[in-house]
């Protein structure tokens, strides 16, 4: 059918550039289109690049911290949206957790930077800008993505067990930790991973709210890439894509396995 051909073209469109990137990362020649034989020298060069390694470490730290904060706040936000019914400020609240999903990054970045500067002038915190301010910024937009994922899981979840526990006298906190949390745990894992990835990937917001000495990996990549194609960035991209692919592959395996086990239990 016509739609099928379009779908195949669509997938080719999605994957061709990634495939090209991986292919040319093993190119011995520095020129992109000239194939100079198979080589892993760009990988070797990458692991000697102190600037890239340092930036990668900073990025990983920021991504880890901001993903943790985003999961805690995002889960609370999702619980509020799904289980708390009506309360004053609900419209404002739901607006504030959907708007960050589409807010252009230049606006978020600029506005947070100006906030941090004003806050420092008024209450003396945060002092200067660097990892702390980037973590706060990333946690804020990560929160919105976490909330979306956890919300859809909570909506699907069977509420009877929670109600049963409450009827048997369990306090709300106990119900949450003993029943709700274990049930939504897989969603929390994927939400954490998404927040982590988004933070690791962000260039624009980090550029605004960063300070001296806190250059994240995307900031270093961007400054190199602006000058054109560079083979060691191809190598870096291949490593990052490989890690993501392995991660997704494992996650799918786990999902398929739990999906298969479920019918036996019921």
């Amino acid at each position, binding site marked *: 059918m016509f*739609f099928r051909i379009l779908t195949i073209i669509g997938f080719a469109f999605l994957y061709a550039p990634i495939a090209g990137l991986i292919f040319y990362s093993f190119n011995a020649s520095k020129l992109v289109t000239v194939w100079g034989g198979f080589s892993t020298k760009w990988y070797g060069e990458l692991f000697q690049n102190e600037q890239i390694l340092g930036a990668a470490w900073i990025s990983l730290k920021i991504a880890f911290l901001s993903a943790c904060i985003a999961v805690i706040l995002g889960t609370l936000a999702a619980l509020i949206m799904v289980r708390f019914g009506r309360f004053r400020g609900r419209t404002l609240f739901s607006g504030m957790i959907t708007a960050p999903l589409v807010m252009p990054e*230049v606006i978020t970045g600029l506005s947070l930077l100006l906030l941090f500067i004003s806050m420092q002038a008024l209450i003396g915190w945060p002092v200067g800008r660097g990892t702390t301010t980037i973590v706060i910024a990333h946690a804020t937009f990560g929160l919105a993505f976490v909330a979306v994922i956890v919300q859809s899981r909570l909506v699907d979840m069977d509420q009877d067990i929670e109600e049963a526990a409450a009827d048997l006298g369990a306090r709300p906190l106990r119900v949450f930790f003993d029943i709700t949390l274990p049930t939504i745990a897989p969603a929390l894992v994927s939400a954490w991973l998404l927040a982590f990835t988004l933070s690791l990937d962000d260039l624009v917001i980090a550029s605004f709210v960063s300070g001296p000495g806190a250059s994240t990996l995307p900031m270093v990549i961007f400054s190199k890439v602006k000058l054109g194609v560079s083979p060691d960035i191809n190598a870096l991209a291949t490593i990052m894509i490989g890690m993501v692919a392995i991660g997704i592959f494992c996650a799918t395996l786990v999902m398929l396995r739990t999906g298969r086990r479920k019918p036996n239990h019921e």
Partner: protein
Amino acid sequence: MSGFLQKYGRIIVIAIPMIWLIVFFLLPFFVVFKISFAEIARARPPYTPLFSWEDGRLAISITFDNYAYLWEDTLYIKAYWSSIKIAFWSTIFALLIGYPMAYVIARASDTKRNILLMLVILPFWTSFLLRVYAWIGFLKTEGVINAFLLKIGIISDPIIMLQTDFAVYVGIVYTYLPFMILPLYANLTKLDDTLLEAAHDLGASKLMSFLTVTLPLSIPGIIAGCMLVFIPAIGEFVIPALLGGPDTLMIGKVLWTEFFNNRDWPVASAVATAMLVLLVLPIMWMRRVAEEA
């Protein structure tokens, strides 16, 4: 303690994310709004305070110059207009590519569907910056596409694609395609098959039942997907900066230049405020559609 928790637990749970979002999401917009009325100054931070105490009296200095400047210097109006144009057409192209894909995925068998869905999500998990970067190698004058076309003899001279608006369209459609497919897919899987059967029984052709049943029912998905592409695309910075040329005008790039290169924070704030005003309506529309769905 437990009595206290019982009584105020609900309020505390609401308050934690609420306060975080008010301080780090809502409040910053007001700060931007405030600074858009300040004047640029040689100071740290590089703008004048709006309120100051002079001889024990509150002095307020507000200027509308930044907005007047946006209006007078044609660069900004042009940049807004061209951002809307680029975002609009990219959205249309993403819809034309994404709809058939979402449709095929939604109608596929269970195992196939999971694999296809994973293939759509996978690029979304890999670095946005690196995916945009990947196109540089493809679109360059001595890049992969030109090398291929020259080899098979379709063209005799390389086409200049990088640093043009065309490259920006390709970049936006490419990176935002999953955002278009996923809401469309979510909508199309919910489609009730009995409706299609009814249309078929009543003699409708495949095309006819698609046009009169599937398409109208998928409008909420279309709107959600289009907004998820259109709104962030308007303020896009990375794509025009890496793939676009010097005359590719997009408001996100203008704001970046105003802030980082010209260090004019008040004008950058005015640009951001004007962009927000432009985006408020589509964002509110998207939220309404999302809540109805």
